[in-house]
């Protein structure tokens, strides 16, 4: 029997993440023996459900996978179906509307995470209710900004949750220029709040950490910040079309989780999401967002996952400013959608959900019937990198008490905003010391 004390730290129900899951960390002295982020239910049910359905149904069916990022599911689905049918909508008002509604989702999701899920970790509260009692203004800012995102999604998407206006080829109805102008006031307000959020987040205390996984994000061919389309690139030389995703990324089943772990075949784990986008595309941020980042002192490189709260705040500025630019140049298209005729083939779509890249692949028949579907959500892609980060954090902070270490480890997971309801069903947390 070892004389080195071993301890286990576990959280059986991880709070302030989307969905449910568990964390398990086992330490022997200052050595981390084992780390597991347990995730139970990937969206395999949806992949099976999609078979036999019409290609036009994929955006609406897959949007049900997540109530937080339905637009991401719809956008990856329409991109993939259009790709299968030989259609590309890479510019013009339809693409603009897609980017606009996606900005709405980023604003909604990031403000929820920054203010209600992540902020309590930094302000020293067990939860957002306790935080809101002492800092009602902080909670109010988050809710106000989230509401601006909802307003965008409702106007462009028809309703805020599981929007109904998105279709393969475009939209069922394109809003008028006048309708979009009604979004200017709330978005300008949200942009101001976002700028204040960056300043506020920059003043928080951040534990030291350097997590160096390969960073993967889309590269927008038009020079914009990655959201709705582009090639898949990394900081270690990956540069592939979404169609080559399968050739470079392998999904593996691991015993402790029902979600599949994705890894780059040649190298291993990788991270998608705000940190990856920020480091790979800092130069593509709008000038206002870049200036806010500089003012916050983070600069073009940020590898500390605890500082992802600042990066999300910068992306809030980016999304508000991008949305306002789209509205200002928008002209209502003659037709809200382009014709997309089905043909036998395979299509791929990758877009940037708020928490990371979401990949869809469909094989369809001549009449558009779906023959096969593959959905790789961001949390499945990030899971290995999150576990490695957790291992590094537990090793660096092994001298904390069990309770403090548990909180630090939970925070390390929340740094990555995992959406376990997309990737899974249930999450709990354990740290074991021997």
């Amino acid at each position, binding site marked *: 029997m070892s004389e080195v004390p071993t301890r286990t730290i576990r959280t059986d129900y991880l709070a302030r993440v989307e969905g449910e899951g568990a964390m398990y960390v086992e330490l022997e002295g200052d050595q981390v023996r084992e780390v597991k982020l347990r995730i139970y239910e990937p969206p395999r049910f949806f992949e099976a459900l999609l078979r036999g359905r019409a290609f036009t149904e994929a955006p609406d069916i897959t949007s049900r996978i997540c109530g*937080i990022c339905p637009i991401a599911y719809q956008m990856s689905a329409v991109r993939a179906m259009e790709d299968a049918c030989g259609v590309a909508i890479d510019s013009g008002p339809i693409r603009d509307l897609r980017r606009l509604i996606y900005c709405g989702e980023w604003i909604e999701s990031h403000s929820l995470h920054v203010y209600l899920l992540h902020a309590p970790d930094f302000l020293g509260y067990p939860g957002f209710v306790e935080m809101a009692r002492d800092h009602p203004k902080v909670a109010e800012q988050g809710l106000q900004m989230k509401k601006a995102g909802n307003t965008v999604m409702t106007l462009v998407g028809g309703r805020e949750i599981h929007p109904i206006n998105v279709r393969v080829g475009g939209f069922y109805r394109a809003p008028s220029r006048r309708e979009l102008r009604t979004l200017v006031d709330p978005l300008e307000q949200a942009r101001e709040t976002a700028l204040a959020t960056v300043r506020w987040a920059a003043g928080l205390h951040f534990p030291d950490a350097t997590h160096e996984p390969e960073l993967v994000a889309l590269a927008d061919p038009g020079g914009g910040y990655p959201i709705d389309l582009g090639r898949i690139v990394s900081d270690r030389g990956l540069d592939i079309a979404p169609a080559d995703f399968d050739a470079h990324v392998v999904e593996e089943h691991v015993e402790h989780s029902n979600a599949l772990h994705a890894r780059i075949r040649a190298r291993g784990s990788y991270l998608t999401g705000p940190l990856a986008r920020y480091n790979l595309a800092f130069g593509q941020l709008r000038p206002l967002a870049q200036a806010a980042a500089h003012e916050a002192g983070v600069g073009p490189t940020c590898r500390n996952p605890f500082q992802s709260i600042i990066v999300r705040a910068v992306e809030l500025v980016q999304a508000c400013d991008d949305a306002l630019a789209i509205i200002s140049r928008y002209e209502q298209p003659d037709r809200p959608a382009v014709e997309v005729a089905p043909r036998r083939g395979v299509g791929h779509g990758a877009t940037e959900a708020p928490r990371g890249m979401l990949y869809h692949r469909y094989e369809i028949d001549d009449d558009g019937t779906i023959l096969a579907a593959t959905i790789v959500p961001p949390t499945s892609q990030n899971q290995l990198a999150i576990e490695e980060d957790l291992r590094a954090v537990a090793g660096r902070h092994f001298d904390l008490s069990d309770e403090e270490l548990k909180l630090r480890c939970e925070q390390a997971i929340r740094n990555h905003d995992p959406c376990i309801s997309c990737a899974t*069903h249930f999450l709990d947390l354990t740290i074991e010391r021997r």
Partner: protein
Amino acid sequence: MPRSRSVLVIGVGNAVRGDDAAGLEVARRLADLDRESGIEVRAHEGDGVGLLELWDGAEAIVLVDSACSGAVPGTIHRIDASSARVPVPLRPASTHALGVAEAIELARAMETLPSTVIVYGLEGSLYETGSSLSEHVAPAIDLAADAVRREALGLLSGHSASRSRSRGSRSALCSARGSGRTAADQRE
């Protein structure tokens, strides 16, 4: 801006996760109430934060969601959350970071909670993705809809039975698997 209807019924849930759809089903059964009575009836999917916007300006709300307390599946819980927390074991089930109970407490902390908040929880047993309502919960939907209808009408006329009851009380109204008695029969 003040809302035109002061009493709001919100059915909460997820349509594709078994018994989690119970609240949505109850809201669907009460569509006539929305058309004819002056009570607003809404269905809400997604995270709980959206509820704060949905009930903004309402004076009284009745929330209907699935619950996970270990009680017999099909049991209908009634909780007056106007001034007391929803008891932890009766927290309605949610796969989101913020469910109904958390939304209520957040609004209470921010002092934006409507003055009357009644929560109906339908005890569920099956939450698998893609499944429909379980055999225990499906028969309870009508009973729950009746109870919520009476509650909302009572609130509208200002004669809610809840007013005479102490705040924060809760009662298991009935089990659909029980003797077939109605919700009203078993009210405390």
